């Protein structure tokens, strides 16, 4: 891993704790994550916090939380 690149991208990695725990939830996210501004995303179904990782240069934590809440999912920033 190139630390320099990582540092540059640091601010654009948004992390969330969610309750998206199934393959069906992941499929749902696949639709939601198609919105403009999301360069890359990933849901870790192996983790107990079902961590959602989003790379975006334009969106912030609040907008992603709102997007998931609107579709019935719990979502908060992973600290």
């Amino acid at each position: 891993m190139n630390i320099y690149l990582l540092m540059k991208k640091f601010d654009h990695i948004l992390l969330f704790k969610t309750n998206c725990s199934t393959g069906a939830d992941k499929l749902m996210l696949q639709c939601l994550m198609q919105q403009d501004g999301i360069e890359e995303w990933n849901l870790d179904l192996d983790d107990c916090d079902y961590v959602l990782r989003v790379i975006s240069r334009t969106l912030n934590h609040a907008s992603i939380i709102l997007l998931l809440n609107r579709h019935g999912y719990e979502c908060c920033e992973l600290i």
Partner: protein
Amino acid sequence: MRTRDIDKEQLVKQKAIECIVKDGMEGFSMNKLAKACKISVATLYIYYKDRDDLIISIAREEGLRMAKIMLEDFDENASFEDGLRVQWKNRYKHMMENPHLGVFFDQLRSSSYHAQFMETFKTNFETAIGNFMHNVHERGEVNEMPFEAFWSVAYAPLYSLIRFHNEGYSVGGKPFAMSDKILWATFNLVVKALKN
């Protein structure tokens, strides 16, 4: 500031291997790793996409590092005995300096990460070893035989001794510590078995 982050990344890799060796692949989680490193889970997810990404990245990196170490001072045109001696020396040194790695690699081999891990050896390493074996057969130093048969005689004794050493005991719980004398005596037996 950058130095500190590289240190943290190194710590994450080292602790990840330790945790996997201790708890097994199944018992390993990002949460446990974060606690072991005394960092937040979020920091881990900055470095890696998910648990799979973390394991595969570390496996690839360690695999490439091992492949590089195994080729140090290795000459594919060397005689069978000299070439094999360098292989034994490099493998022995690497395994003794990184005692957790042997177990970690065994765990990778018997996991779903097997294919990705083995990919790392399909680089210079396989070519150099392939050329060495070709030369050895051409010169008639060693007979052709199934690869698995060759490997089992050529390297399995070395890995057995290292395992005994790491566990501190051998068959039947007998205390065991490796020495250069035992290592090279075993090597001589291996050469005797394989060389025409």
